């Protein structure tokens, strides 16, 4: 009798091939409250703060709600997601600048979109493969996020502000446009 070779993966080896799922409720920036969810990685908080400032100054956003995700490798806790979904019209999260936090930031962005909240994820270009793999695992292949050049952690304050400004157009496009 010929024995089968057993599969060690539990049948889960294939990454799902679903399409990106964006909430159809894209954002009108004027008067919007923007959640800034920083993940404790070096320079994440000033990067997001500068984006928030620019959205208020140039696009008429009403203000920001700044929060910290303390466990950067893990999915956003449900209570924190619910609180941001309740108090904000859109969320910016990041910076995905390590092996686990880049994947996790993408998972959070997808979770926000599925809760009807437009979300822009900031990820360093060194982690595109792992970010895309996470999108596949969340059945959102092709999920679009904002890419900033690696590294982010070594930048000085002026350089961080410049990076945020460079990312601004992509953030606006993702938050406001279904086509993104």
């Amino acid at each position, binding site marked *: 009798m010929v024995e089968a070779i057993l599969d060690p993966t539990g049948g889960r080896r294939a990454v799902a091939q679903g399409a990106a799922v964006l909430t159809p409720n894209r954002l009108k920036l004027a008067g919007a409250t923007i959640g800034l969810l920083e993940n404790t990685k*070096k320079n994440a908080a000033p990067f997001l703060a500068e984006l928030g400032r620019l959205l208020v100054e140039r696009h008429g956003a009403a203000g920001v709600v700044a929060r910290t995700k303390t466990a950067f490798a893990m999915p956003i806790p449900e209570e924190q997601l619910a609180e941001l979904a309740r108090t904000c019209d859109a969320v910016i999260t990041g910076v995905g600048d390590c092996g686990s936090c880049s994947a996790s930031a993408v998972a959070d962005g997808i979770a926000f979109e599925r809760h009807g909240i437009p979300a822009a994820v900031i990820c360093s270009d060194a982690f595109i493969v792992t970010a895309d793999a996470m999108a596949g695992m969340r059945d959102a292949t092709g999920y679009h996020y904002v890419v900033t050049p690696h590294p982010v952690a070594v930048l000085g304050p002026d350089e961080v502000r410049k990076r945020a400004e460079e990312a601004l157009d992509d953030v606006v496009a993702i938050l406001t446009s279904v086509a993104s």
Partner: protein
Amino acid sequence: MTAPDPVVAQEAIEHCYEQGWTDGLPVVPASRPLVDQFLARTARAPDEVIGRVEQLDRECTVEQAAISAAMAGCRPEYFPVVLAAWDALMLDRAARGGGWQSTSGPSPMLVVNGPVRQELGFNSTGGVFGPGFRPNATVPRAIGLMVRNAFGIHPHVLEQATQGLPGRWQICFGENEEESPWEPLSVSAGLADGGSAVTAMLLRTVEYVDNRHTQDHEQVLWDLADTMSRTGALIFREASYGLVLGPEHAQLLAKNGMSKQDVQAWMIEHVGRAGRDLRRAGKSAGEKQVRGASGSTDGDDEFQRFLPSPRHVPVVVAGSRNAAMSMVVRVFGEWSGKAVAVEGTA
């Protein structure tokens, strides 16, 4: 009985490569009868979930562990050690979280205590960090295959190690209890003496200390502390650096009246650097516990200690008593401080 057919074996091995199941080396293709022999060595149900990575929505069952252990080349009787090693790892916060995806590319170090070492043939003496012994080689490999196949964490995809460390999925040894002057690591971790147990911690790397030309135990302590105090391994305000002492070093220290706890206390006191050394290396400033560069010379003259508690300085004795060498092990995150008893052993 006819001789095994190598062509069939080769085809089965290639099949496993094609499925993406291997760590680069050939695996033993797992069959139902073989895996059932593994499962017969535990009272735990095959569908019991023994690990979960929440962020990836993946888990590992006893059955998947058995398949991985078989594929890694374990014998069925090793399986309780594999399960104990896995449970010990799951006590580690990083192993339950994002550690396997980390740019640090950490590896488990598995330390086996008790009679199971002799029963299964774990090496605890010469060449403990090297190859040549089936249980030492295959038990940690099984853990690596569980992370790869059950958790789905593959290099270059969800696993983002910048370089990783030599010996990843290969660091597993018995403690040399017979030549250690002190209690076994499992006893330091709170288990009863004489039992078989596994302790697990994640490592960034290991570095040897060769000091065989002195009878002065304080010179050995200073030599160990100097290696532990390098700036390169330092990323957070606090660190965890263990010692795998060769029997000669351990016996020299014990002969001079030092317990394991004394050695830990000595290292807590002496492992660290002057503020100016840290500033020069860009590691003086702490923001949220992460070290970074600072231009400030404040604190240049202060001695900064790195090791906050004895749990951050695990001490284990392994190797051969043929030269006075030891290994500093750089712990990723921090050790849980716990050991797990091997099922079915006293």
